[in-house]
Structure formats: C-alpha cells, structure tokens
C-alpha cells in the first residue's frame, strides 16, 4: 500500500499543478509530504498565486483558499471521477473573475462527472444547464419551483 499511496499522491500532485494555474491565471501549487515514512506521513498544500512569494496557505485570502481547495478536489476527481459531485456555495468567497474561471472548469469536467451546485450567484446559475429552485412559500415547508433565469437577471439590475 506504500507504493499505491505514493502513486496516488504523485498523480494528484501532477494534476493539481495543471489545474491551479487555470484557476489563478498563473502561479503554481504542490502537495508536500510531512515526513519520509510513506505509510504515515501527512500531506500539506503549498500554493503560489502569480507574482506572490508566500507559500504557506495560512496567509492566503479567503477567496484564494477556496480556489486552491477547488483545484485540489478537481485534481482528485480526475484520478477517480466519482459519479457525481455536490458543491454547496463554494463560490461564495470568490470574486467575479474567479467565478468565471471556476465555471469554465466545472463545465469541462461535467463532460465526465455530474455536478449539482448550490449557489446564490447569478453567473454560476447562468453557467448551469438545468436550474432548480427551492423555496418555502409555506413557512417551514420546502418546495421545488421552476427558476426563470431572465427573471433572476432582471432583479439583479435594479
């Protein structure tokens, strides 16, 4: 299992390093083992947004951490694509430019994996092929409703 873990680690690491620059528009990220013992060593992430020096993920911003995490999850997906993926408001900390890059990547991966994305963000909604509304017209009782994206667009302007 030692070599199996190392193989998994290396594959995810390679894929992370491909996905990170796509989400950040440059820079690099890598997985690091915290010890030599392959059976017990822990795993850490280092990330360099374009033009920045620090590697400790602790100093990254809220939005940057969310993007690195998305790159990592999608890197794992590439190795073992689960039949579906559910994401609950992962776009909440992201700015508009990063949401666009995130949606582009999700769109590409959705060729192989089904995505169910919970979001309040209009651009993320617009990127989905199907939209389901959950509402509580009767207090405390959840019900599904159709969502008309034009309606959603319109109330975002006023």
């Amino acid at each position: 299992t030692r070599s199996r873990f190392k193989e998994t680690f290396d594959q995810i690491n390679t894929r992370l390093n491909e996905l990170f620059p796509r989400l950040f528009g440059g820079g690099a990220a890598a997985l690091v083992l915290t010890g030599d013992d392959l059976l017990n060593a822990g795993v850490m992430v280092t990330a360099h947004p374009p033009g920045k020096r620090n590697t400790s993920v602790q100093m990254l911003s809220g939005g940057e951490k969310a993007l690195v995490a998305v790159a990592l999850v999608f890197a794992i997906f590439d190795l073992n694509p689960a039949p579906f993926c559910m994401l609950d408001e992962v776009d909440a900390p992201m700015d508009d430019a990063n949401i666009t890059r995130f949606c582009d990547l999700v769109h590409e991966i959705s060729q192989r994996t089904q995505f169910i994305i919970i979001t309040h963000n209009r651009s993320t909604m617009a990127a989905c092929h199907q939209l389901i509304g959950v509402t509580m017209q009767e207090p405390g009782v959840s019900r599904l409703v159709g969502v008309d994206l034009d309606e959603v667009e319109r109330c975002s302007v006023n």
Partner: protein
Amino acid sequence: MRLRRIKLAGFKSFVDPTTFDLPSSLVGVTGPNGAGKSNLIDAVRWVMGESSARQLRGGQMTDVIFSGSSGRHPLSSASVEMVFDNNEGRLGGEYARFSEISIRRTVDREGISNYYLNGTRCRRRDITDVFLGTGLGPRSYSLIEQGIISKLVESKPEDLREFLEEAA
C-alpha cells in the same frame, strides 16, 4: 452511474414527498436562505449511510425527521431515495444486470433505520459496498458542504492524507 433523481419525504424541511429530477450533468440549485438547499446534501449523505447526527447538523439521528412548523404537525418517519442509471454497467457484480439502481433509507422516531436496494431490504453494509471504489460515500470528497471550502487546505496533514486516500 449518473444520478437520475432524489426523492425526499419527511426529511428535514421536505415534509411533502419531493422529487429532484436530474437529467442534466450540470445542475444549479438556488433559493432563499433557510429554504432547504443544504438539507438536500444532508439527505444524500444520510441515504449513503451517514451515522453521525453532528455531520447532519443535528443532535440525534431522529433530528432528520420533519419536526413540525407553524402549519404542520411533526411526522413520525423520514425517507430518502436516490436512483442511479447503470446503463454503462459501471457497477459490477450482482448489480451489473440492473439498468437502474435505487438506494433508499428510512428512519422512525425510535431512531431505527432501514436500508433498501432496488426495493429489497438490505443492510447498511450493502449500501456502502455499492459505492466501494467509486469515490462516493457519506464523507466523500465529492460532497463539499457549506462553509468548509476555505478551510479544506488548512486541514491537519493527517486529515488531508485521509482525504487523498479515499481516492486511491
């Protein structure tokens, strides 16, 4: 093995039987705060065998049963069913011959859960076995709950290792 639909009845705020039809590969779910969107993810974790009430934002396992509202009485049981399309035969073994796979879980006020696989009662283990090797499961990397995405990369090194091992 694409997810076709999720049916909830009496699960959390989904009092009335509710079916999420999911024909597409990129589905958005939206709605006001407190409407029940995250309850859907809880339902998916639960039907796949989640056994910790805390992971489902509750105190005990019966907290997933509809507890009433200003206009409705509490219910005595909850049920969630997930239906997958198995046309590619991705699920091997005895399930390869089914074109659709349905897993279902119910719970009553005593906290007793029952699991069903294509309508037949089975054990919890049978459900977790179905998902073995697919990357799916109640704590899988493919279910990212609300509010944790920014903390994932700061997890303890041994937790991050576990996260990766699930994919192996």
